[in-house]
């Protein structure tokens, strides 16, 4: 393994800018690393070596011409396959989009390219971002670099695995109910779900429109913040985008790393812990709280009584919206087409295509959602779930009166073995227990590594009020600086 892949994004950008290494060398080192380990990790669905090297050459040429480079120029990145990339296959982990090549870039893809960040390829994911393990990918699961028999989290598990396996220093994920934070936690890296509306959704293949947010992964809080600044900010092409500048997250990460947390009130959410949580996870979390106290933070306990309804509410809202969002996959304009034999009627071709093209979990959610939106059931299900959302937001508002940030474990358990939960949807859904409230409230949350349990990483979730993403990064960076970094193992042969 080249030393270049051990570097942080910040270090790589510094070396590329100073001319110590070229972007092409850095990119090639990562492509080599992918070649070396991805057969075992299976983080990538599509590696674009030519495109990546061309982008790297462009950065080197820009530098040679004396033009200024952005803070992440020349840094390789792994892109979740739910984000559209012009000219690069985009499947969202589904067979129904096999072979589809988008004719346009997502806003964040465009911003990443404009920043000189090098896209290495597209990463594996649970189909249409529905899942917590990548086992719902139509292309087979990704493997956790800490233990290849275990899941790397999901749905952005390809991205988290790529960063943890040193195949890329940065990655993009999307988080609807925890799909950035839980994979970050179980692979021992940093991941952030921005405030809803803080990062453009234009070009994200929609799962649940009112919840989906793209966000950054990195191995350090600062790297993650720098990538957040590249992708964040107002986009007129997304009506739900907030017309405000990106919160100063990189500055917060830098400030946090060099200071204590005196005067900061940290709320421990009483409702996110206890029964159903692994003892090792709770122990690591308690240690993390102790560390925060040692850093000078005032620890308060807060109660969020409606968080217990987050899971049922989420599993009505997300399926309802996905049942509508996924209706467009009908074989008429793009993607898979099955049964078009000149005899089958159009409706039959649509049905056969959807039957063959969607996996079991996607079908389950489309059915739940279609039912929940049905005339006569709407008020009892979708309508009621939206009310729960309001109650959860009020819980947050009350808690943020008492505390500047809230903390909890990111996931109730460490990475579980592949196959252990796939047959039991409820066992899979409770992965999201801690991450769902911030999703439903549209508030930002960061996961930062906070130790090991059974030699597997545990994540600390740091939640802040809407638009105060910088608080997550400040606390995350201070915490990161105060603890021993995890030593991510070499991927087993």
């Amino acid at each position: 393994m080249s030393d270049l892949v051990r570097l942080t994004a910040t270090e790589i950008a510094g070396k590329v800018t100073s001319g110590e290494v070229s972007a092409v060398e850095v990119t090639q080192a990562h492509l080599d690393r992918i070649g070396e380990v991805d057969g075992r990790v299976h983080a990538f669905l599509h590696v674009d070596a030519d495109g990546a090297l061309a982008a790297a050459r462009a950065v080197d040429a820009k530098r040679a011409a004396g033009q200024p480079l952005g803070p992440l120029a020349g840094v390789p990145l792994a892109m979740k396959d739910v984000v559209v990339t012009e000219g690069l296959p985009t499947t969202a982990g589904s067979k129904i989009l096999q072979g589809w090549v988008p004719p346009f870039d997502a806003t964040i893809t465009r911003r990443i390219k404009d920043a000189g960040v090098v896209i290495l390829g597209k990463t594996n994911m649970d189909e249409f971002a529905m899942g917590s393990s990548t086992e719902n990918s139509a292309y087979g699961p990704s493997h956790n670099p800490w233990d290849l028999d275990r899941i790397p989290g999901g749905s952005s598990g390809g991205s988290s695995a790529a960063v943890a396996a040193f195949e890329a220093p940065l990655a993009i994920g999307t988080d609807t109910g925890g799909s950035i934070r839980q994979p970050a936690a179980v692979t021992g890296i940093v991941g952030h779900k921005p405030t809803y509306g803080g990062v453009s959704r234009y070009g994200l293949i929609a799962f649940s429109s009112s919840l989906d947010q793209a966000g950054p992964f990195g191995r350090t809080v600062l790297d993650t913040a720098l990538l957040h600044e590249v992708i964040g900010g107002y986009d007129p092409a997304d009506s739900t985008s907030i017309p405000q500048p990106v919160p100063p997250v990189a500055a917060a990460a830098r400030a946090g790393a060099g200071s204590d947390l005196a005067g900061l009130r940290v709320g421990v959410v009483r409702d996110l812990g206890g029964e159903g949580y692994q003892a090792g996870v709770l122990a690591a979390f308690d240690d993390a709280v102790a560390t925060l106290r040692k850093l000078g933070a005032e620890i308060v306990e807060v109660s969020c009584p409606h968080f217990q309804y987050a899971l049922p509410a989420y599993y009505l809202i997300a399926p309802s919206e996905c049942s509508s969002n996924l209706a467009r996959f009908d074989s008429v304009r793009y993607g898979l087409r099955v049964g078009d034999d000149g005899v089958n009627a159009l409706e039959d071709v649509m049905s056969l295509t959807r039957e063959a093209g969607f996996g079991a979990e996607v079908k389950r959610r489309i059915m739940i959602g279609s039912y929940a939106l049905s005339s006569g059931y709407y008020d009892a299900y979708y309508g009621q779930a939206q009310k729960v959302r309001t109650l959860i937001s009020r819980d947050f508002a009350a808690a943020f009166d008492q505390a500047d940030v809230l903390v909890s474990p990111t996931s109730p358990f460490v990475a579980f073995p592949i196959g252990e939960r796939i047959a039991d949807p409820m066992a899979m859904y409770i992965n999201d227990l801690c991450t769902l409230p911030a999703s439903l409230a549209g508030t930002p949350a960061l996961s930062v590594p906070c130790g090991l349990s059974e030699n597997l990483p545990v994540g600390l979730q740091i939640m802040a009020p809407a638009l105060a993403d910088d608080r997550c990064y400040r606390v995350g960076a201070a915490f990161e600086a105060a603890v021993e970094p995890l030593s991510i193992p070499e991927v087993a042969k």
Partner: protein
Amino acid sequence: MSTATLAFEDVIARYEPVIGLETHVELGTVSKMFCGCPTTFGAEPNTQTCPVCLGLPGSLPVANAKAIESTIRIGLALNCSIASWCRFARKNYFYPDMPKNFQTSQYDEPLCVEGYLDVAVGESTVRVGIERVHLEEDTGKNTHVGTSGRIHGADYSLVDYNRAGIPLVEIVTKPVPGTGALAPEVARAYVAELREILRTLGVSDVRMEQGSLRCDVNTSLSPAGSRRWGTRTETKNVNSLRSVERAVRSEMVRQAAVLDGGDRVIQETRHFSETTGDTRPGRSKEEATDYRYFPEPDLVPLAPDPSWVEQLRRELPELPAARRARLQESLGVSAEDMVQMSNAGVVDLVGETVDAGAPVGEARNWWLGYLAQRANEREAEPGDLAIAPAQVARLVALVAEGSLTTALARQAVDAVLETGQDVDAVIAERGLRVVSDTGALERAADDAIAANPGVADKVRGGKTAAVGPLVGAVMKATRGQADAAAVRAILLRRLGVEG
């Protein structure tokens, strides 16, 4: 089911109709409802599309502010309340002309509610309640290729998404009871008045034949005196004012026959046929469609600023009813004439022709008569004809001074429409002048008499009414450029009858 055709009078004697109309109006915005694609009609298929209006994965809508403004203006012109807060909703159903398999529309939170429109029918005025005016996106257009021309039995189907995403305003009336025998005319007059308002607002080109104004007509019958309304049907594909009237009439007659036969009217969608003038059942659906409406999460709620709405209200143009009242007074025409002119869409044209110097009667006759006929043949609106009111006034003047006969003036109109030249130019070029050379007319008269001795004898015998064919022959010989009355007088004189 009875196939016997009832007389309309019999229907009215025993049943009371309730009508309702849903009108879809394509707004004339430069760009589409949720993306920047152009909206020009008639472009090559699928050339006015982008990831958004094709519903490609990842694309997102952004609402067209101009379309929202137009919808509010329509609502204000129809005396509606404008919602201070409302949302778009998704209407979910699968159809290949819908790129996303849902239509972004409005459901229980429309932009405009509770208005009305007064329409004049003959001597009476009927107030039609407006339930809602809402904004949505149009679908693409399917073309089924094959002998049947319909989806069933087609060899293949083509979809043009140029229309997909064009802003569409839906205007829904409340049920209109109590119009009796006038129901078909009320329906027509409502659409005609609505069209005038939309045209005055400048929000749409309101061309029914191009589909920028489309009507669905709901009709039900209940036995006279009954308080319960009957089951309604929804008739689609009603693409002209005349068809609106015919569709209501034929559906009333059909439903009366069903009820007379002791059967129930089925709640269904029916299609109007322009050729047969009756309605046919649409494809029967195996189950009721559940559109699974829910608020569109990709768009933020609309909350029009009340002061902006008031500004739009103040800036509304003079609406057709007020304009008609003003013009009726200044032109000095009857209320009935005014309604007729309004329904034909020629009020302004008549007004401008009068302003250019023509007497109002002449102006009215031209625009309701020959010019309306020409427009009709071209499937165009009178206002779209390539002849300006001033040129019509010029023709009226030429006829009045005797330089042209009415027949010659019509030839001049045709020539103007054909060439786009002005009246004096076509008259000069084609030599369209009344032949007043008496010698020439007399020679032509003598030729006609010589060629038709039998007819001539009859006239000589005192049957002056038989002179017609001889007049015709002279007119033909002079290529229509003679004054027929003068020719008749000459013929009679030369045959020794009268004069």
